[in-house]
């Protein structure tokens, strides 16, 4: 940075100690920005430095970091991101979770890149931010209210109808381990239980707005790069904009990748009743975009009448449709939309909720859960009424719902017997709506390694893009092996190089502050690394060429692994749930399973620079990335 002036970033960090009721404004650390860029990278370094090993995620010692990246809230397309980082109460490892909407942009317009929330408030509070004015205010009147109610009240109370609200529902207050943080009513930072962290701190909400501009180092260059990128996304807009993320349901089913019946199969015969087409044809009121997004995949939907009448809300993403609807074999969109709305407004993650519901149905079938646990409800596949009743029990932590609210790993441990055999989680994170067996082997290894947050389809990236969807993502010039192998091939196919590159590319989204979806398309029409490099370089005035970006990404990805290593994660934890190792019994991908997980792990560890025996990043790798101090901790003398 030649001039000393910071462009693109807002330049300040809010550090708020809820225990002491103290607000401190710090300068954003430029030394950290240079190394970690921003977003979850900056937060990972703060959490590494400031959290002690083995901190209880629901204790005052845990910290919640609200992050933006340099591109957040700018003209860069799809930059309405906010990412929350913390130690996860669900998994006990690094937690990060993202939402769209406008919270991230508004935080930057208020003049802050990050908020670090510490301690626990004596009574429920919310934080109100407008530019320099930052207040911790009483929230006892909204404690217990749903997300929709609380958001509405806060917008009126603060008198700013265009402010952004990130809040928790009763789910977070009740410390449901997969409670989410809801942004602007219906955009969910769903995974890892960020809502429970807020709940444990008695922090109901953060309201933010501001008048500050974001300054640009090279305005003309930046504007040209932004317009070029916006125009390039027109194809993604045509595809995702038409039927939303749920538009993928039908084709995923045909290709045998769509998990159903608690991952017992990858094919659902009645899929057309739960397709994205059905959703948009019958229940869509209008399309809605997040801040600065030309794609506009958001669905503003409702069920106008009938038994499952549901108020208008943004919802039913691909993940929810599968995890709540198809996993439990529902036969209609309407109860699914009702469940989707309940998840949003009570503030729980619909992926984890769907996973534990399907698990509970199977456990009921196997006699591990009985009618005594369920208040007399018979849990059966395809019984939407029973699903909704069970969801309500989870929300209220009533009966078996109290146990299911702890997540599938803890539930299976408690139930004992063979429950772990069909509890689908990776490192404690409920497996989402992509079956590794039906998708590809790169995807299997992604779930197994699960860095940083456990078995996840999109964090850091959807690696099936390479060997399953077969698109280059614009990474061929940076070493992506091409052509990709058959998607079910296991070893000797340069998987390590491919996965590493795709993950590092995906990680950039959470550092720069953009959405991952527009990155996942063919290179002429996606937010590829050249476009990202052009945008962030012109914005900040720093020379951030693609190679430099990938190195920063590598540093962050590796540091997050080190955080998890410090919490006790090692090679033995890099595994797939038993169910995802068993051969698929039906559907187009019948017979698919994973045979050589260990050999694949070796290959990918090698490419990542991780030690094969322990799964730790090697000393050499850490030194190469300038993480010498981290090496001293995870490789003690």
């Amino acid at each position, binding site marked *: 940075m030649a001039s000393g002036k910071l462009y693109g970033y807002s330049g300040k960090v809010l550090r708020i100690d809820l225990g002491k009721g103290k607000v401190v404004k710090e300068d954003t650390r430029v030394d950290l920005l240079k190394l970690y860029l921003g977003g979850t990278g900056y937060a990972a370094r703060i959490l590494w430095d400031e959290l002690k090993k083995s901190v209880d995620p629901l204790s005052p010692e845990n910290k919640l970091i609200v992050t933006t990246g340099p591109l957040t809230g700018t*003209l860069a397309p799809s930059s309405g991101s906010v990412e929350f980082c913390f130690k996860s109460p669900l998994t006990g490892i690094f937690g990060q979770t993202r939402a769209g909407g406008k919270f991230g942009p508004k935080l930057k317009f208020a003049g802050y890149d990050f908020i670090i929330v510490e301690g626990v408030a004596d009574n429920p509070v919310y934080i109100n931010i407008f530019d320099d004015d930052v207040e911790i205010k009483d929230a006892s009147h909204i404690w217990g209210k749903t997300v929709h109610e609380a958001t509405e009240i806060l917008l009126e109370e603060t008198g700013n109808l265009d402010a952004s609200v990130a809040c928790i529902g009763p789910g977070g207050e009740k410390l449901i381990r997969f409670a989410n943080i809801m942004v602007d009513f219906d955009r969910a930072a769903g995974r890892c239980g960020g809502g429970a962290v807020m709940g444990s701190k008695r922090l109901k909400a953060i309201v933010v707005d501001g008048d500050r501009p974001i300054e640009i180092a090279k*305005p003309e260059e930046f504007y040209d790069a932004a317009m070029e990128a916006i125009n390039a996304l027109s194809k993604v807009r045509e595809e995702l904009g038409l039927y939303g993320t749920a538009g993928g349901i039908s084709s995923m089913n045909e290709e045998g990748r769509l998990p159903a019946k608690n991952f017992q199969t990858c094919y659902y015969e009645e899929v057309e009743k739960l397709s994205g087409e059905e959703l948009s044809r019958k229940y869509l009121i*209008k399309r809605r975009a997040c801040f600065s997004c030309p794609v*506009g995949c958001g669905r503003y939907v409702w069920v106008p009448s009938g038994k499952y009448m549901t108020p208008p809300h943004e919802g039913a993403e691909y993940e929810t449709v599968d995890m709540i609807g198809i996993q439990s074999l529902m036969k209609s969109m309407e109860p699914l939309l009702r469940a989707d709305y309940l998840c949003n407004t009570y503030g729980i993650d619909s992926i984890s909720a769907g996973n534990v519901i399907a698990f509970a149905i199977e456990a009921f079938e196997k006699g591990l859960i009985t009618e005594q646990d369920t208040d007399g409800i018979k849990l059966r596949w395809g019984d939407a009424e029973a699903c909704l009743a069970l969801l309500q029990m989870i929300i209220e932590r009533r009966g078996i719902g109290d146990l299911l609210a702890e997540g599938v790993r803890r539930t299976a441990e408690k139930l004992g017997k063979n429950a772990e055999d069909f509890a689908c989680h990776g490192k404690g994170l409920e497996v989402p709506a992509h079956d590794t067996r039906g998708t590809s082997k790169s995807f299997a290894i992604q779930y197994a390694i699960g860095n940083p947050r456990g078995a996840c389809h999109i964090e850091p990236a959807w690696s099936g893009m390479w060997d399953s969807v077969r698109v280059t993502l614009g990474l061929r010039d940076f070493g992506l092996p091409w052509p990709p192998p058959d998607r079910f091939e296991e070893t000797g196919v340069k998987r390590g190089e491919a996965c590493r590159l795709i993950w590092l590319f995906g990680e950039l989204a959470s550092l720069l502050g953009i959405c991952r979806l527009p990155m996942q398309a063919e290179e002429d029409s996606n937010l590829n690394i050249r476009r990202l490099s052009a945008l962030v370089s012109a914005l900040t005035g720093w020379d951030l060429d693609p190679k430099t970006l990938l190195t920063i990404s590598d540093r962050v990805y590796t540091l997050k692994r080190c955080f998890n290593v410090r919490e006790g994660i090692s090679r033995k934890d890099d595994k797939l749930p038993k169910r995802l190792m068993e051969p698929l019994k039906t559907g187009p991908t019948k017979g698919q399973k994973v045979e050589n997980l260990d050999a694949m792990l070796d290959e990918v560890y090698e490419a990542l620079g991780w030690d094969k025996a322990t799964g730790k990043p090697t000393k050499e790798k850490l030194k190469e990335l300038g993480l010498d101090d981290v090496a001293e901790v995870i490789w003690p003398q």
Partner: protein
Amino acid sequence: MLKNLVVNPNKCTGCRLCELACSYKHFKVVSPSKSRIHVVRMPHEAIDTPIYCIQCGLCIDACPFEAISRSKETGAIKVDMNKCTGCGICVFVCPYGAASIDPDDHKALICDLCGGDPECVKVCPENALLYLDADKAVAYKRIAFSRLQRKELIALMPDKR
């Protein structure tokens, strides 16, 4: 023939790229607060609508400092920044909330149609904003006005695009 900025609110998804492009065009920064166009989203209604200046000119006569005039070339409102005191009377008379005061320099923010090449129209990914010859624009203006009359009815009506 003069051109008009018109909007097809059915198409707006509420992404607000228009606000960002507007602030860039005039100030070379990104800031919705410095934009002359603003998207209103009603979270519980099917409404995402760009609120923009219809160039009615009420503010011209209202300005006590004669800072506001109309451009002969584009027909658009022009604010003389040397004369503007930021008193806010233009905001007062503007029926739509299209005129506002810049939070930085406290001068009036009123759409000048970018001198005849509006940036918001160029950036809109949905083509919800249009810059049309007066004869083509008039139909959009009538529909916009009729929607104003029926506002209680359009809430929650599914939009079939």
